[in-house]
């Protein structure tokens, strides 16, 4: 039903295309390059329109005609980044378009000066003090017009940006919503709004226009808020509605898969993306992260060289090269490239965290801490940085101290097993077994990616002499390992089998015990013990002639299983 509604909404793709084409020209006239780029990419994904179906040129008013010359002149100055000059010639123009460009030039001029001055400020403490001087004047003028309701969609957007830069976030949200309602097709406004939304409740409380672009926004928001399942569903709907060729959607889906660590899916999508759009640099750092995780050296090397050829002074390129060096264990060089990325964009969050990882590899813990702290400063919700800090302190042998950081990371990613396992390990080191058990069990319940939680839980139970629980966990562990199919390096199936064999033997389940012992023989490190167990079993069986004796000596000794472990169906396991 929902699908049907969606399809009807997207039914008229030609209509959407028309809207896109008109909004592209509007954005271009106003120098809003990123929004124009986004809309163009989307328009490119749709089928071309026949000639007579193209949208008409927007109406040309008397005012527009009056300002035409000034506007053309100013626009060319604007394109050459001579913002003050552009603003000078636009002063006094009365058309909406000219007014927007006038204000926008002033804003950009202030931003540019701010950037220039950051290098050249009077003192270290003043660095944060450097601000866009034009902002306040702009705000005064815009708010006057705003109360008089003289602002159109674009100027409302600019007003919102000014408010956000002045840290008046609440007002900014209101103005962005207004801007979106006035002009839903302007993606920049949606994007700005998305940066200000912190949680799902806030998202639900906003009143947004029901336009097809809202679906893009919602999908984007779900990805930001780590609600990956919902996001993927949204994107899937969009693809089915006819946007299947959009590189934007493909990259977003790939990023979403990356976020839930579905590496293979994400890799496939990125490869597809590079086929369609070989000179793309956006999102390639995420791609390189995936290649790194999979240790795909040649692919990563190819990607790095390819990107360097396209543009070596892009943040993404530097991150890719950093990852490349890191994979080759050349951590100094890797750190160097992450530093370069940060010089290009100090607010590049990923680079700080990655640099922290590199310092960790180089055993330079203090620099690692510093890097992670920077990452957190840029974005408090960066769980990897919190996790990294925790790891650093764990390496420094401060298990209690690192708890705080792991807890923070866990708070941000409640369903990520890695944080839970880390928390459990810390608790174990502090001899807080109860807490540790809880953490491991939770890690298993949320879907353990590293398949370590159950093993650790079992070992913990073993230490505490809780043999039934331990056996249960080992059993689950074996099932888990074999059900996931692939061979894991650190898998300790033999340990589990060994324990289970002994456990069954103690509880006089000789059939199961011998099965486990036989399985043990498949592993080098447990072969001898397996054989020994088999011998013991056959000895005991010889002594106890009648199998019925088992019934009269039931499991009444002190280690009676409270939860009887169901006998293993080991036949299905083929290592």
């Amino acid at each position, binding site marked *: 039903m929902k699908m049907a509604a969606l399809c009807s909404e997207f039914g008229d793709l030609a209509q959407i295309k028309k809207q896109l084409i008109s909004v592209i020209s509007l954005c271009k006239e106003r120098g809003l390059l990123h929004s124009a780029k986004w809309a163009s990419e989307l328009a490119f994904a749709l089928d071309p329109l026949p000639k007579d179906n193209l949208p008409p040129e927007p109406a040309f008013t008397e005012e527009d005609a009056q300002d035409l010359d000034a506007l053309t002149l100013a626009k060319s100055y604007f394109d050459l980044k001579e913002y003050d000059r552009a603003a000078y010639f636009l002063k006094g123009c009365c058309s909406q378009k000219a007014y927007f460009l006038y204000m926008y030039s002033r804003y950009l001029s202030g931003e540019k000066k701010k950037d220039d001055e950051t290098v050249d400020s009077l003192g*270290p403490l003043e660095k944060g003090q450097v601000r866009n001087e034009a902002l306040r004047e702009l705000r005064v003028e815009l708010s006057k017009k705003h109360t008089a309701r003289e602002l159109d969609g674009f100027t409302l957007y600019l007003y919102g940006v000014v408010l956000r830069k002045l840290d008046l976030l609440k007002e900014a949200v209101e103005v962005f919503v207004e801007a979106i309602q006035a002009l839903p097709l302007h993606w920049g406004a949606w994007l700005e709004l998305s940066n200000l939304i912190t949680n799902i409740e806030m998202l639900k409380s906003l009143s947004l226009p029901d336009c097809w672009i809202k679906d893009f926004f919602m999908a984007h928001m779900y990805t930001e808020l780590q609600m990956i399942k919902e996001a993927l569903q949204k994107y899937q709907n969009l693809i089915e509605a006819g946007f299947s060729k959009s590189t934007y959607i493909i990259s977003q889906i790939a990023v979403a898969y990356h976020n839930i660590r579905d590496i293979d899916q994400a890799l496939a999508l990125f490869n597809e993306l590079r086929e369609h759009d070989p000179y793309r640099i956006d999102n390639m750092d995420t791609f390189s992260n995936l290649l790194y995780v999979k240790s795909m050296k040649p692919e990563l090397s190819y990607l790095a060289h390819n990107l360097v050829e396209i543009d070596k002074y892009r943040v993404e390129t530097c991150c890719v090269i950093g990852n490349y060096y890191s994979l080759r264990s050349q951590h100094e060089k890797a750190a160097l490239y992450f530093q370069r990325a940060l010089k290009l964009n100090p607010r590049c969050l990923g680079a700080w965290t990655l640099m922290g990882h590199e310092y960790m590899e180089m055993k330079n813990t203090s620099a690692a801490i510093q890097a992670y702290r920077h990452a957190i*400063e840029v974005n408090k919700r960066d769980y990897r940085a919190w996790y990294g800090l925790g790891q650093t302190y764990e390496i420094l042998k401060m298990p209690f101290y690192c708890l705080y950081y792991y807890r923070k990371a866990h708070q941000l990613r409640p369903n990520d097993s890695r944080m839970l396992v880390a928390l459990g390990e810390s608790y174990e080191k502090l001899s807080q077994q109860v807490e540790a058990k809880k953490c491991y069990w939770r890690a298993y319940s949320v879907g353990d990616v590293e398949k370590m939680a159950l093993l650790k839980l079992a070992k913990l139970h073993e230490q505490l002499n809780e043999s039934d629980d331990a056996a249960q966990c080992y059993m689950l562990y074996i099932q888990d390992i074999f059900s996931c199919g692939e061979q894991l390096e650190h898998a300790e199936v033999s340990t589990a089998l060994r324990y289970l064999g002994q456990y069954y033997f103690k509880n006089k389940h000789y059939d199961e015990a011998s099965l486990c012992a036989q399985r043990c023989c498949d592993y080098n490190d447990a072969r001898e013990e397996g054989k020994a167990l088999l011998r013991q079993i056959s000895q005991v069986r010889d002594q106890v002639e009648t199998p019925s004796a088992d019934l009269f000596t039931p499991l009444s000794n002190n280690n009676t299983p409270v939860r009887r472990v169901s006998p293993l169906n080991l036949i299905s396991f083929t290592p």
Partner: protein
Amino acid sequence: MMTNGVVHANVFGIKDWVSPYKISVLALLYEMTSSKITLPERRRLNKLILPLQQGPDLTLGQFLKTVEECCPQTAYAVKLRSMADGELKDMEYFFSTLPTPFTAFDSEAYKTSVVGLFMRHMLLAYNKLSFSQVYKLYKSLQHYYHSHYDTVGDRADKEELDTPLHESELRRGPLSQKQAEYFLARQAYLLKNDENKALRPAALQEELNNMLKFNPDFAEAHYLNYLNSMRVQDIFLSAHSLLHYFDRLILSGNEGKSNGDEGYGRSLRYAALNLASLHCRFGHYQQADLALQEAIRIAQESNDHVCLQHCLSWLYTLEHMKGSESTVLTQDSVKMAAHFCLPYLGSLDIQSLVQQGAMQGKAAHKLMDALKDTEILHWKHSLSELIEISLAQTTSIWRMYGKSTMALQQAQLLLNMSSLEPVNFGVHQNNTEAFAVALCHLAELHAEQGLYSATSEIFQHLKEQFPPHTQHSKLWMLCDLKIQFERHMNNRKYHLAEPLVKAMSALNKTEGLYRVMLSTAELHWESSSFSTALPLLLQALALARQHHLQSLASEAILHLAFTQLMLGIPEQALNVLHEAMEPILAHGAVIDKGRAMLLAARCHMAVAGFRLKGQALAVDGLNEAESYFSRLNCKERLRDVHYLQAQLHRSLGQTARSNKSAMNFRLLDQELQSPAPPVFMQL
């Protein structure tokens, strides 16, 4: 600049920079050296120099006002105007005419003087400015000057719109590193010693946020943030700030060498220790224990004895807070501190040892000796904080032993002591915890003597010095409640006393519980037979004597005597009572004195029967008791006294006196409107 791969914010190591305000200060200094100023004015100005140099940037209006208060006619403002109204070259000229501290040997601006140092800083900072920075400085100087002198008319429309911005932006500019350091040190000092004078928690928080916005690398601000959050009991924020501080510190303490032991290893240990103290303060004992163990382990691994010593101190504090025995640990700590020559920790340990000893009833002279020894140590190392604590502790101990005069003397000694801190030397009163404790004792002592107006005055003072939001305010609140409770109990207004018990238990659980037990015990005692109370009272007496708790012992004797009286052996009661009479009259509270006299009189009456001598003694006793009770305005007991007086006088045949007492009794009885208890079943 990169060290160890990390970007340092402070590129040139410049801690100060030139701002328009600094130029104004320079102009003032210049004026002071060059022109003739009268001597008293000069003296006032000299006193102003340091605060002006260290404080945050003022607006020109504030600055002019401050200076004009000291010295009405100065010409430095003219110089400023010539710069602001003139051209860039005027500013450049000004800097070139400044007396260079290196050449001016005989002036106040010689290079090693305070002024000279400031001038050198400024000249250096100015000379390092680039072309555009100089121009920017000049522009901001013009703005600084004109924003004060120009009328605000042309900007009126802007003002009304910008109000939300103005508050946050214009209130205070960024601080230079020097100014920030000074600010932090000042606030931290005030938080410790005189919280009332420090900024309010919210204001301080805002200030710190502001500072961190301008320089996120300023780690000390995080620590102050931690202290500030502790004030408002915000565990979340304080833990966050504490860890943030140490994350930052770990880097700054590590210049160059990445695994240097003395560098960040040290701050790691103290980080864990601080975390332990945080949890300890919030009462998370298990967490504190874990953190402390971690700190101890790391300190042991790196052989840091000083840190270990700190850990040990916290360990016994923690054990003590958990309510378990920690004397042995404390003793160890004292020994270790002595071994490593840490006087502060050592005497702190001794003080807690004395406290524990006092609770456990150690011999009083030993405790006093120990305190005296630490006192010598304090004065030797001038540990003013510990001197205060020590005096407050002595007061408490004397109070505990029931020696009110000695306690009073010690409290007065502390309160009349001037501050020994170098920062505000000679300031009469600090608002530390020790002062709060001493004042509370003073209040209780006065209340015991029935001087309620004096008591309320003391509380008024406490309220001013330690407003309810500060950390030591709990002390006097509890004390206030205690006194009210005692008062109501004395007047037998149990219904009024009951809610107070609840309020007390909100502030302090054990104290409240103690009160509940006491009142219920008294109720039981009223109803139960007296013979069963006797062994209990004897036990209490023995215990009090063993712990040298004189006031409690006297009280137990009073109860004992009363029980004996009730059991019909007044001679024995009188004997026992004589023993307690002396200490009670010397140190006891007024109510106890009255009770003792009344009891003695009743015993005399019972013993004497109709013998004249005993009756005369009883009359004296009753009169004295009357005076004590009327001082406390304790009407119910007065009524009892009057009744006894009337009876006694009648039996002596003094009808007029008897009638007078009877009338007094009648008046009080009407006033109280509650039936008198059948016989005097109460002490």
